[in-house]
C-alpha cells in the first residue's frame, strides 16, 4: 500500500502515519497546484489529527540532470497544524480547527471537515475515502513466490471502503512560491513533531518506495535483518544523512534486481559495482511535478521515465489520485521505461477522485475494519475433500 503502515514504529501512532502524497496541477483551476497528504490509514470515523504534529509539505525547485534531477537550495514549506478538539473558543467539543502556515509565514485558520478559501488558497482537511487502490494480495504473492503473481480475474482492492484523514491545499505557485519557482518542483509530505526538537516521524515522496521496494529483507545480503523503513522515514528526502546511505542503497540495489528478474529478461543490467540503474533516481525520493503543463490523470513517473530515456517529458508528471501507480511502477521495474504494461487487475479506487476541490471524495460512514481488509488477502480456504 502506497505508504500505509510503512514501518513498525508508526503502527502505534497512526495520526503520524503518512499514507499518501499527491501533487498535480488543478483540473479545477488551471495554473494552480494541488498538494494532498493522507494520514491515518484505515481511519475509523472517530479518528482525529494530532495536535502535537506538523503535517508538512516541502517543495523545492528541481531540474533535469542526466537520468535524474538536481535539487535547488531554496525550499518552500507549507505547515498544517491542528488544535485539540474543542480547544478553539466557541467550537463544538469534537470539532478541530487547523492552521496552514504558508512559506512567507502567513497563517490561515480553517475548520476541519470544511472546504475553505482564503486569499486564493483553498484548504480542506478531514476524513475522506482512501483514494489509493492496489491488489495487495498479488503484491505479497509476488514477493513470496518470486514470480509475478497478479491475477486480473478476481483481483480486489485491499483498501476498498477504507478511509484516511486528508489534507488538500490548492495554491497559485507563482503567488505562494514566487515567480521564479518552477516549473519543475520536487514535493515531499512529512509528519514532524511540533515545537521543541522538530523530529521527522514520517516522510513520503514517491509511492510504494518503502512498502514494495524496500520492505523485503530477503534479497539484501548486506543488511538482511534490518527493518530499514523506520530509519528511512526519518531521513530528509532532499539530503539523506551519509550514516545510513550505504544501507539504503544496498537495499535498493538488491530489491530492484529482484523486480527485474520477475519477467525473465534483464532490462536493468547493474553497473560494475552492482548498482541498479534505478537506484539513484528512486533514492532521490520526491514527487516531480511540472507546473507549466496541464492536469493529467495518468502522468505519474512520466518525467522520471523521460529522464531515464533521455527525452523531453510531455506531461505534468506529479501524481494524481486516480493514477494507477501500482501498474506504472511494476511496469517500470520489471519491463523497463517503455515496456509492456503490467496490470495488477485493480484499476480504480472505491470511488474515483473528482475534478473539483477537494478532489478526494466523502468518507465511508461504515468503513471495514483493518482485519477484514487483511483477511481478504488470504487465499480461499481449501475445499473439503469429498468423502
Amino acid at each position, binding site marked *: 500500500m502506497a505508504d500505509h503502515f510503512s514501518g513498525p*514504529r508508526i*503502527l*502505534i*501512532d*497512526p*495520526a*503520524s502515519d503518512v499514507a499518501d502524497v499527491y501533487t498535480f496541477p488543478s483540473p479545477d483551476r488551471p495554473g494552480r497546484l494541488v498538494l494532498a497528504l493522507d494520514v*491515518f490509514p*484505515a*481511519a*475509523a*470515523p*472517530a*479518528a*482525529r489529527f*494530532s*495536535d*502535537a*504534529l506538523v503535517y508538512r509539505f516541502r517543495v523545492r525547485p528541481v531540474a533535469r540532470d542526466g537520468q535524474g534531477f538536481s535539487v535547488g537550495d531554496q525550499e518552500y514549506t507549507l505547515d498544517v497544524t491542528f488544535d*485539540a*478538539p474543542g*480547544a478553539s473558543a466557541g467550537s463544538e467539543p469534537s470539532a478541530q480547527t487547523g492552521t496552514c502556515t504558508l512559506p512567507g509565514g502567513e497563517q490561515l485558520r480553517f475548520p476541519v471537515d470544511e472546504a475553505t478559501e482564503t486569499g486564493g488558497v483553498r484548504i480542506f482537511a478531514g476524513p475522506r475515502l482512501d483514494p489509493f487502490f492496489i491488489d*495487495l*494480495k498479488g503484491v*505479497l*504473492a509476488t*514477493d*513470496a513466490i518470486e514470480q509475478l503473481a497478479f491475477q486480473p480475474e478476481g483481483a480486489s482492492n485491499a483498501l476498498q471502503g477504507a478511509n484516511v484523514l486528508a489534507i488538500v491545499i490548492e495554491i497559485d505557485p507563482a503567488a505562494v512560491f514566487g515567480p521564479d519557482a518552477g516549473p519543475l518542483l520536487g514535493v515531499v509530505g512529512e509528519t514532524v*513533531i*511540533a*515545537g*521543541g526538537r522538530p*523530529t521527522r*516521524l514520517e516522510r513520503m515522496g514517491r509511492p510504494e518506495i518503502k512498502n514494495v521496494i524496500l520492505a523485503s529483507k530477503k534479497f539484501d545480503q548486506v543488511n538482511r535483518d534490518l527493518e530499514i523503513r523506520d530509519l528511512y522515514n526519518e531521513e530528509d528526502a532532499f539530503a539523506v544523512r551519509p550514516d545510513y546511505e550505504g544501507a539504503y542503497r544496498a537495499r535498493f540495489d538488491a530489491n530492484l534486481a529482484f523486480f527485474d528478474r520477475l519477467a525473465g529478461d534483464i532490462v536493468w543490467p547493474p553497473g560494475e559495482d552492482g548498482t541498479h540503474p534505478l537506484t539513484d533516481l528512486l533514492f532521490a525520493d520526491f514527487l516531480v511535478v511540472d507546473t507549466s503543463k496541464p492536469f493529467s490523470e495518468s502522468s505519474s513517473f512520466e518525467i522520471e521515465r523521460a529522464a531515464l530515456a533521455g527525452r523531453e517529458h510531455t506531461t505534468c508528471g506529479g501524481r494524481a489520485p486516480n493514477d494507477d501507480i501500482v501498474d506504472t511502477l511494476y511496469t517500470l521495474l520489471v519491463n523497463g521505461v517503455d515496456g509492456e504494461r503490467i496490470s495488477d487487475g485493480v484499476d480504480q479506487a472505491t470511488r474515483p477522485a473528482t475534478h473539483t476541490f477537494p478532489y478526494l471524495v466523502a468518507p465511508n460512514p461504515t*468503513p*471495514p*475494519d*483493518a*482485519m*477484514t481488509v*487483511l*483477511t481478504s*488477502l*488470504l*487465499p480461499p*480456504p*481449501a475445499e473439503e475433500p469429498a468423502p
Partner: protein
Amino acid sequence: MDRGDVRTTDGTLALANLTAQVDMLVGQALPAGSPDSAAHRILEQQATLVDLLTLRGHLLGCVADYERAFQVADRMVATAPHSAIALSARARTRATLHRFADAWSDLDAAHRAEPSVDGLDADRSAILQAVGCYEEAELLLQNAASQQSDFASLSAQAVLYAERGSIAEAVQAFAAAHDAHRGVSPFPLAQLDFRRGVMWMREGDLTAAHEAFDAARRRVPAYAPATGHLAEIELLRGNAAAAAGYLRPVAETSDDPEYAAHLVLALRGLGQHDRARVWRDRAKRRYDELVRLHPEAYADHAGDFWLGPGGDPGRALRLAQWTLVMRQTPRARAVVERARAAVGASSPDVR
C-alpha cells in the same frame, strides 16, 4: 497544548484515536492453515491489537480490555500454534493477568518456533521482575537492549531499578528514558511518569510521587491508575474530600474494584457511611468475581481490600499467603505481614 519539555498529542484526543485504532483492528480471526505472507501480516496486526487493548486496559483501568486482549491472543495461538508472534502475544496477555508460568511456557514455545524472534528476552525479563527475580531480569534486559528502542530499553531498566529499590540508578534511567522518547504519543511518557510515581510512593516520598502522577495525568487526563494513586496520596495526607474528587469518576467508569475500594475509605473519612457501604458492596462483588476469574492477578489486591475497607483480615491473610506462594515480591510479603498483624490483633490465637 505544550506539556512540559516534550510535546505530545492531547491525551483525550490520543485516547479517542487509540479507540478508533482498536475499533479498526477488531474483526475476523485468522482462518486456520494460512501460512503465507498475508497470514504473517494479519498475525502482526492482531498482535498490535493485543498490545493496544492491553494499553487501553491499563490507561482506563479496564479489566475487560485485558480479557479481550487475552481472547484475541488465545485465538491467534489456536489458529497459528507454531507462530512466535501469536505465542509471544499470548504470553504478554497471560503476564498481564499474572499467569506467569503459563506466559513463560508460551515464550519457550515461541523460542522453539522461531529462535531468532525479537522481544522474547524483554518479555521474559518483565516476568522475572514481576516475580521478584531481579538479577535474572537484569541479565535478560541487557540481552534485550539490542532488539529494543532506546526508550523501551531504558524505561524497562528504570522500572527494574525502581522495583528492586536502586533509587539513584532508577532516577537516572527514568530521566534517560524520558530524553530518549521519540514520537508524539502521550502514552509512553505518561506510563513512565506513572512508574516513577509508583517508585516514589513505595519510597514514601509523597511529594515526588504526587508530582509524577500529576505529570502522567497532564499527558493523559483519563489515566485511571495515576488518578487512583493521587487519591491514595490525598487519603494518606488526610484529605478525604480531594481523594473522593479524584475517585468518583474513575470508580464509576472502571471495572477494576480498586477505585471503589479507595472511594469507600474516602467516603468514610467524609462521614458518608451509607454511600461508603454501597461502594464497599460493589467492590466486594467485583473482587469476588475477579478472584474467581483471575486469581493470580487479583488475589493480592483483594487481600488488600479485605484487610482495609472489606473488613475481613482472615480472608485477607488467606489471599495474601496464596499470592506469596505465586510470587515472592516485597509487596506480597508486606501484605502477608500486615494481614498477620491484623488477624493477630483481632484474634490472638491465629498465627
